């Protein structure tokens, strides 16, 4: 029977490799040397299906804030604070140490314990015990990374969040949701016609997106838990670029039913449609300021695409970007102080982040085909789509530009990332 099981396992590997949902893989392409030294000791574990400590280690590593100690450099592997020889870690120039263990396993239920230790003070900063089903072990590991990140930086962690993105190959377009490290991808919609522009509702329970499945452009709002959805806009012409208002009651969107593409808001409760811009040029890609008071959008009314601002009830249109010949697809930082955008010069498109106060733009990426920026909910990173060597993939960059990671898809292109708020 054991032998049979082994064959079954082998069979699964062989059969699943080419068949299973292609997953994202992460490579850290540029890392920071200046981060705070942290050691995550491999957790003691007896047969847990997920290597919890390596998930934590990878999360902290790709945040750009920490310099992680390589496992082979460690001289001991304590699994609880009581077994830690602090001088040993001080000698390795570590500031912080994470130890822990994964116990249980009966009935697929595990118990994860971890401690975050201050090496210099030989003291404990955090210590928790969490129960987790086998299926939730990765999520638990991400939550632990969030807790450690917050304790050490004062900023909320974003590792246990989710990202949405669109995958394309010649046959199919799929809208997927995955963990921030690309694991657990789930397809929430697929069509042989293009799917575009996923936008999370502020409470993360719904997704708005564009689908061409009926051979016209239409905007749908889908409840993620049930898969139920509603077509909320299908006017003649463009139905595009949906963006949720911070209160979750409205969508800003682009319609071209009156001629040129204009910005509208759609009240999802009443169905009331309000036209905000009326220029004869392209107005599109609306995004709400976090306070809900204004909407930033892309317009070529000045000849080239630039970002403009309009009151969310209409009126007061003003241009807000002035450097570069292409500034488009704004994404607000959660605190409203920065706007990420596609910043183009002479056919080279990079991700720039503008300080809303000073209007100065800091270019974070190297181009030449970077697009669709989306801020992490803690404002520390920007996720975007790029293309090199004919392959479309996602990349995340820290706000200082020092940390770059690549989220590649094993088959076909991946585009239009949206980090869940």
């Amino acid at each position, binding site marked *: 029977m054991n032998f049979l099981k082994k*064959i*079954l396992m*082998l*069979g*699964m590997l062989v*059969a699943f490799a080419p*068949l*299973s*949902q292609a997953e994202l893989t992460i490579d850290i392409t540029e890392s920071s040397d200046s981060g705070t030294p942290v050691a995550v000791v491999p957790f003691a574990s007896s047969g847990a299906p997920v290597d919890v400590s390596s998930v934590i280690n990878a999360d902290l590593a790709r945040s750009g804030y920490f310099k992680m100690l390589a496992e082979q450099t460690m001289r001991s592997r304590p699994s609880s604070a009581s077994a830690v020889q602090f001088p040993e870690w001080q000698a390795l120039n570590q500031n912080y140490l994470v130890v822990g263990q994964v116990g249980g396993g009966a009935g697929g239920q595990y118990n994860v314990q971890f401690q975050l230790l201050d090496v210099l003070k030989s003291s404990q900063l955090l210590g928790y015990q969490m129960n*987790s089903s086998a*299926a*939730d072990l990765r*999520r638990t590991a991400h939550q632990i990374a969030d807790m450690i990140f917050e304790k050490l930086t004062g900023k909320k962690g974003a590792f246990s969040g989710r990202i949405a993105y669109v995958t394309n190959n*010649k*046959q199919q377009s799929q809208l997927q*949701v995955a963990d921030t490290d690309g694991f657990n991808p*789930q397809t*929430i919609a697929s*069509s*042989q016609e*293009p799917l575009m*522009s996923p936008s999370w509702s502020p*409470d993360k*329970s719904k997704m708005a997106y564009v*689908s*061409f*499945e*009926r*051979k*016209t*452009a239409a905007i749908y709002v889908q409840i*993620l*838990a*049930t*898969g*139920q*959805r509603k077509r909320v806009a299908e006017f*003649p*012409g*463009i139905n595009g*670029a949906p963006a949720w208002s911070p209160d979750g009651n409205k969508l800003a969107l*682009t319609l*071209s039913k009156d001629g*040129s*593409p204009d910005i509208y808001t759609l009240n999802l409760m009443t169905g009331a449609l309000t036209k905000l811009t009326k220029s004869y040029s*392209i107005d*599109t*890609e609306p995004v709400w300021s976090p306070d809900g008071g204004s909407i930033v959008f*892309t317009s070529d009314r000045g000849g*080239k695409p630039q970002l403009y601002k309009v009151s969310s009830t209409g009126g007061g249109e003003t241009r807000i970007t002035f450097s570069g010949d*292409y500034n*488009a*697809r704004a994404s607000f930082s959660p605190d409203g102080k920065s706007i990420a955008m596609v910043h*183009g010069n002479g*056919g080279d498109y990079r991700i720039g982040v503008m300080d809303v106060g000073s209007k100065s733009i800091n270019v974070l990426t190297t181009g030449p*085909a970077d*697009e*669709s920026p989306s801020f992490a909910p803690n404002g520390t990173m920007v996720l975007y789509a790029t293309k090199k060597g*004919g392959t479309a993939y996602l990349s995340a960059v820290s706000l200082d530009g020092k940390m770059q990671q690549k989220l590649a898809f094993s088959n076909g292109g991946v*585009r239009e990332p949206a980090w869940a708020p």
Partner: protein
Amino acid sequence: MKLNKLLWVLLVAIFALSGCSEDEATDGLNAGQNAASGINDASTSGLNGASTLSGMAGAGYTGVTGNNSFLGPEFTDPNNPLSRSTIYFMLDSSEVQPDFIQVINAHAKYLVAHPNQKLTLEGHADERGSPEYNIALGDQRAKAVAGMMKAQGVSDGQLTLISYGEEKPAVFGSDEGSYERNRRAELSYQR
């Protein structure tokens, strides 16, 4: 040999099983322990292709269609401008270039002479820049062609406009030659 056979049977069984479960598993989002995050248990039916996404029977990606030959020999005669069904544009522009005016005029004339004939104008963009901005650009391109046709007497009801932006490239490639072939409006007569 026996082992091989067993392995095969298992593989086929797993293959079949995984095929079924995949469909059901992708229905909604699974419940994490984060029920509070708003993504809840979705063991019941969620969105799934076939049933709810009806009407998307797949034409797939068409590329440069230009296949209006069912209308008659003039649409395949390379000396007739009606044989050309793709209008190309400059970077970030929806202005019709002089080369294509003759082509658009020929199609306009045909539509005026055949008032029951309907034409779909698909606007497209190259992959550079922002996807939704490119949808807008494709829309402007289709409208530029439509505007010229309407000026010559083609009725609104004869034209259907749609922009696919950069979503349906004619050519998959990231070079100037591919970009040029992807910045286009395609004219397809409805059967």
